[in-house]
């Protein structure tokens, strides 16, 4: 490509991807008002739960965890979309990743923020939540380091810090672009965010190195986070919880639901921000194949878990097994199997079906199915724990439904706001992809050709 053409491409990328930042239509305000309203309603709901008492939820003896813990596990699962996918795609240098990575990393950070609220929302005395934190108290009382809930605290904090850094690093050059193209207050804010980025070869080199380190470091963190979330269940002697398969099962499910969330987010962004030129059908096609692979993996884990339980044939476990397989939870169970296995297998497995629309349909199915999966892990077990006398049923109450539902509004709201202040597709990575064939990208130790980019 000659240099004139290169400049023209750069300008087009800049104007296309900065358009959402520079122009705001009434639709943006409407979206923010609607989703902000739902989030505000959930806040009121939670306030009334705190002031009137936890009893306004449907939690009861012996089902002491319900919608809140389901939402917790679900959102921590969704958070695995981003960082993990983007880190792996970066490490294997998949060219098609370029427009996808940032959408994915943002999902991680926001989903983690939403998920991490639930351990506090579900507390009986949330005003004492800081007792979970290891802070030096004058009474020398520390949290109980044997408790999986304390492991959660460390795991989620590590992951949130790591993925925030991982999201922020590649945003620096883009902040510099916005800085250079804006004036006034916006210029001053982005000047701070850009951290003095000038685009010198040294800076590019350091950025690449830092991202390489983060991409490698974040993968074991992501795997450990959902393993530890699964430990919340597998460490307790509850039928169908105490299972060695839970760690990988939860991690696979998390990545599965994460890819689905990413596909939905990408399709929505493509449609509403008019990014058809950047998010091509091939991106959906490739992520669709990943979704298909994860559906197979998920099916493998469920089959494994179920078959081992069935052959183990222990009375406590079989009570829960039949409750989900055939009895009161069977409609939810088979909906889950349909949404998580049958639907993605058909839509993503048969090539002509693998379109953007069916990617979205399959992804919505997977998101519903994975939410049900978490619910079906938690509630049937707690309701059928060993002694038949203490069996119980759980009926979610309006406040729980409101808060659990509002998390989706919160996610959308955060996403909409984020897309307003940061280019949702990484400008510099896209330009690098336009200019340098992947085979020609030298290792990070050499001086980087990106240093010559006109940003």
């Amino acid at each position: 490509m000659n240099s004139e053409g290169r400049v023209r491409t750069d300008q087009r990328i800049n104007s296309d991807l900065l358009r959402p930042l520079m122009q705001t239509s009434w639709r943006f305000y409407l979206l923010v008002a609607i989703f902000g309203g739902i989030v505000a309603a959930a806040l009121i709901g939670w306030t009334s739960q705190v002031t009137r008492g936890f009893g306004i939820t449907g939690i009861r003896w012996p089902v002491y965890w319900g919608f809140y813990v389901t939402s917790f596990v679900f959102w921590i699962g969704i958070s695995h979309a981003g960082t993990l996918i983007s880190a792996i795609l970066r490490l294997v240098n998949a060219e098609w990743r370029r427009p996808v990575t940032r959408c994915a990393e943002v999902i991680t950070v926001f989903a983690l923020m939403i998920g991490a609220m639930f351990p506090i929302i579900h507390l009986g005395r949330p005003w004492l939540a800081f007792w979970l934190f290891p802070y030096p108290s004058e009474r020398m009382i520390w949290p109980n380091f044997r408790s999986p809930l304390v492991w959660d605290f460390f795991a989620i904090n590590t992951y949130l810090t790591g993925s925030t850094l991982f999201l922020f690093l590649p945003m620096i050059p883009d902040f510099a672009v916005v800085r250079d193209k804006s004036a006034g207050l916006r210029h001053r804010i982005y000047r701070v965010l850009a951290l003095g980025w000038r685009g010198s070869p040294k800076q590019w080199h350091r950025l690449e190195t830092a991202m390489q380190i983060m991409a490698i470091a974040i993968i074991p963190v992501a795997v450990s986070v959902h393993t530890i979330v699964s430990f919340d269940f597998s460490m307790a002697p509850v039928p169908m919880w105490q299972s060695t398969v839970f760690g990988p099962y939860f991690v696979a499910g998390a990545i599965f639901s994460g890819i689905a969330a990413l596909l939905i987010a990408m399709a929505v962004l493509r449609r509403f921000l008019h990014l058809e030129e950047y998010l091509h059908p091939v991106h959906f096609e490739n992520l669709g194949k990943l979704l298909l692979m994860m559906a197979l993996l998920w099916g493998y884990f469920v089959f494994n878990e179920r078959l081992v339980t069935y052959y183990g044939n222990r009375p406590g476990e079989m009570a829960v097994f039949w409750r989900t397989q055939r009895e009161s939870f069977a409609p939810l169970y088979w909906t889950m199997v349909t949404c998580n296995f049958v639907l993605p297998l058909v839509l993503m497995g048969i090539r002509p079906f693998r379109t953007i629309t069916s990617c979205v349909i399959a992804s919505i199915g997977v998101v519903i199915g994975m939410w049900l999966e978490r619910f079906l892990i938690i509630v049937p077990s707690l309701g059928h724990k060993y002694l038949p006398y203490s069996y119980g049923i759980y009926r979610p109450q309006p406040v729980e439904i409101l808060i659990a539902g509002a998390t989706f509004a919160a996610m959308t709201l955060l996403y909409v706001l984020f897309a307003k202040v940061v280019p949702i597709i990484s400008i510099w990575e896209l330009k690098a992809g336009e200019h340098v064939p992947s085979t020609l990208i030298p290792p990070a130790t050499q001086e980087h050709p990106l240093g010559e980019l006109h940003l």
Partner: protein
Amino acid sequence: MPKWGMAVDLDRCNGCGACVTACHAENNISTVGAEEAARGRAKHWIRVERYWEGDFPDVRLKFRPVMCQQCDNAPCEPVCPTYASHHTADGLNAQVYNRCIGTRYCANACPYNVRFFDFFNPSWEKPLHLQLNPDVSLREVGVMEKCTFCVQRIKGATIQAKADGRPLADGEIQPACAQACPAKALVFGDLDDPGSAVSRLSKSSRGSKLLDDLGTRPSVTYLERQS
């Protein structure tokens, strides 16, 4: 140091429920009303489980009083993030209400479902509010509560015996449930004292632990029915 335990003779239990009432009165367990109780919010630190055997009309009813089993290897203890649920030197599973933040993890981990959550601040139907026990603290909304083996009585009797300069006698301490049981189905005492009534009963060939195969090592022994 004593090791507190209980023996429950299922032959003697006739399911009258006196233990449940006595426990409520002794331990300031708030009543929640019929509507909340139907929603699974009743707090019975001890309950009488009823199981029917056979098909109607040829049925037989079996009773089993179930309270906190005060396990030596209690699943509720390691999962508590704040040490609200912890093990005492004399083998009790203590619950520190003031330290509890209400994760309810302990109750989920408990295979016996003998832990209860305070969904609202405590209240009593009149005139029950006039008979609160000054030796037992009230629990505010959002904490877990459970059977303590009437730890206030254990402490009271231990301190009294120490003040009198004598050892504790077997049977001197009686939890409210054991005291109220008209059939004397519940026997409480020190398992470390081989001569105590509870030690002798616990060694009975009829004795078994509830959900023994879970490895929780309960301090409560059930003597199975012979008839």
